[in-house]
């Protein structure tokens, strides 16, 4: 408990940061406790629920299973880095429009996982979206509004003038 702190530098949301922390700490703990970025949430801290997902060098990782030390000199992206300049990312805007964030607790993880999907697959099928999000649990939405939001954001990111499906907002 009295271990000397480790000190690392890495790129966080596009900016260079340095941070000192107890060396046993996970990336989740470093982000929340030492860097004050509480947008990254936790549901189990055992790698079971996906709620703490962040992007490490562009790939979704469970920040509760990654040591903070392992991030030295790497790139980390959290939900706080998704809306630079105060403008919502198309995924964030679509989540807001569909009510894909109900309680909002799992939302940062879904957003980042979806962003990583769209970075490699700009036109995913619904099955591909389900596969990509299968490691993230949500208890509020039944996932359906999340799929709708990812599809709408994907279309908008492709430059298409897409609008929400009326049945998705009002029913059949």
């Amino acid at each position, binding site marked *: 408990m009295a271990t000397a702190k480790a000190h690392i530098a890495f790129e966080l949301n596009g900016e260079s940061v340095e941070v000192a922390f107890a060396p046993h700490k996970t990336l989740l703990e470093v982000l929340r406790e030492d860097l004050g970025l509480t947008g990254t949430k936790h549901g189990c801290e055992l790698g079971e629920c996906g709620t703490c997902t962040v992007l490490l060098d562009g790939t979704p990782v469970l920040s509760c299973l990654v040591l903070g030390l392992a991030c030295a000199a790497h790139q980390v992206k959290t939900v706080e880095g998704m809306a630079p300049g105060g403008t919502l990312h198309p995924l964030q*805007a679509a*989540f807001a429009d*569909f009510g894909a964030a109900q309680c909002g607790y799992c*939302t940062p993880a879904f957003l980042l996982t979806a962003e990583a999907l769209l970075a490699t697959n700009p036109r995913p099928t619904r099955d591909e979206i389900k596969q990509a999000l299968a490691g993230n649990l949500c208890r509020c939405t039944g996932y359906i509004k999340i799929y709708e939001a990812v599809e709408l954001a994907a279309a908008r990111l492709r430059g298409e003038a897409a609008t929400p499906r009326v049945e998705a907002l009002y029913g*059949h």
Partner: protein
Amino acid sequence: MATDRRPLRLVGKAHRKVDAAAKVTGATKFADDLALPRMLYARLLRSPHPHARLGRIDTAPARALPGVQAVLTGQDLPIPFGILPVSQDEHALALDTARFVGDPVAAVAAVSEDIATAALDLIAVDYQPLRAVTDAVDAVRHPEPQIHPYADSGNLHKLIDLEFGDVEAGFAAADVVREDLMFFEGSTHLPMEQHAALADWSPDGKLTLWTSTQTPHYVHRALAQVLELAPAQIRVIATPNGGGFGGKSDPFSHELVVAKLAMVTGRPVKITLTREEVFYCHRGRHPTLMWVKTGVKQDGTLTGMHFKSLLDGGAYGSYGVASTYYTGALQTVTYHLPRYRFQGARAFTNKPPCGPKRGHGTPQPRFALEVQLDKLAEQLGRDPAELRLQQLVPPHSLTANWLKIGTMGLGPCIAKVVAGSGWKAKFRKLPYGQGVGLACSSYITGAGLPVYWNAMPHSGVQLKCDRGGGVTVFCGSTEIGQGSDSILAVLVAEVLGLEVRDIAVVTGDTDLTPVDLGSYSSRVTLMSGNAAIQAAERVRDIIALHAARHLGIPLERVAFADRRVYDGERPEQGLPFAEAVRLAEAVHGTLGTVGSYTPAPAAGKYRGAGVGPSPAYSYSAAVAEVAVDPATGVVQVPRIWIAHDVGRSINAAAVMGQIEGSVYMGLGEALMEEMAYRSNRNVVHKIPSLLEYKSPTTLEMCDVITYVVEDPDPNGPFGAKECGQGPLLPVMPAVANAVYDAVGVRIDEVPITPEKVFKALRRKAKGEEPRYGPTSFPDIPWPAPTRVPPPWDGGDGTAIAPAAGTARGRRSAARPDVVPGRP
């Protein structure tokens, strides 16, 4: 409730929620996101025994650990509490007895979570194990040792017997009488956010508690009671809940403990439960064994129903008395039942306490009722949809148990899912292994009575107008993800002719906001919504008075829309809303109003009549499509059609989200979710983790085709009824009925696991009863029945006085016994 003069501008549209931007940017502060300078961290020591007397507890080594600031045991918080006045049976830390594996026994506050955790290992507790009660049937068989001495009988916490008309005469008049046994396994809410709370004690004697709770008002009361503080010294702030579903509706040990630790140490103290601990908090679905006997004439008319339930309540009362009544309350609100009898029992067992989970006590009986109706339809050779449509409860009527029905949109709901699913072309016509099943349900839009008896409003709103044209709504309601903050904003903006973004919403803070009882029983939209409309109409009337003078027009011509106040007959004559506010404020003074809502009294006046009444009942119908693999018993659900009578949609996007989320949670209960314990291994929870407690992922979740039926109810705000719980209920029986359609076996319990389907298929192959489910209901020492003639037999909703010396329990008061009382 609200008068509706003009076309609606905002109500019914799809709105971004007022907190949407904060939620998608990670800016929302949940309880564990909060930190204060010099904050300590608390951990709870939990009992490893299911049932044990506590001997000596040695805390000295823990106190000596560097960094430990305080250690508490039960003696430090000796005053009992509990959500219901009739079951004040919990202690913040076990006082003399631990009653389940996970029951909190001691608490530590330390400068770090690691040190607090290490200190727990240094606390020595002398446990003297007692016999543990493993489940409800075990509780019936073993009245001793009693888990709580106040139980109605042995280890049976609560016993209920209500009879509405002569049910035996009903059976005698029937052509077909069926008896079925069903079991509904317990399940838990599994909110993604673990419970967390942060307490701060100020040297001037003020306690502030931030906590992830659905019911800040009840936490406020519990803190005052247990800590012996004046309520004015306590401020409870409900942080946005990262999911609730009923699991954050009780005052909890950890909330009381961090408050006490903050008082003892003079420093802020935070606790965040581990995921395993969330399973111990539980308060989820009661495992329920049911027996149901129903009579029906050849033409399909129901002649009577006798329903028995036995609930496994776990170690404490929680909402359990209400839960028990709810297993018998809403059988009558969908199909006309001329005679009805309900016998309900709740057992104490040595497991985490059960309580209110989405649907609170009604999904279990609804499952039994809807599966049995499917069997009755087959016996009569009738289509199950038509059999239901034939005997819908009429709108604006009373049921056998004196529930007052308002609007009733179940007929259109059934029609929607039957047409949408292609029911007639599929039912009993699909190839072996594929099937469809139909089921319906209803749910309350708020309970008619509060948890503790009082005559005050259930929801209050204060509203203030700013000179710049903004309006702030203050309400004690709690945002748990269902979108209640947005409902307040939409309704006030609608009444005042503003835009949603003009409205600021302050909720869930006992210092700042008028009391709202909490986010439970699907009450918030209707109750806080009506209170908000009343406050908004009052301020609108003040502004209109001054605008009318300014415009030189009669008061009744003043209209509000598009941020303007204007002459309804000459819309170009008007002024901006903000200017109208300033005119009014100059003459009237500061512009602020209040509104409140109290439900109308219940029609029933018998003991027990307090559970079931509601200002409005929502209705749902669902068709599930399944694919069953006969070789493995694996059930897949590709899609569900669901129609829900919401009265009127206020935020269309939120209504869709609530319906789909309900279907999701119902699917989990139908197929996989179960709170499972090792009865022979110290009654430990088998699977207290998010990995092993199976819940549907994206790969199991079905497609949902949703129909929103709008039949505005006169009691709802702009006609709105609930949509957050009701649509869960038909899913489980629809899946069970579809499994039968697919492979011809009845699974009379949930979850419908591959093992159960496989066993039933094997029985069928051997020529045995093609069924999996319970086979007996134990003998229970029921009290003498409370007999209440149904409305059509005369009477006024009061019970018939029992013959002298025969019946126990009848009291002259008409109040239900979930209100005041013992201890």
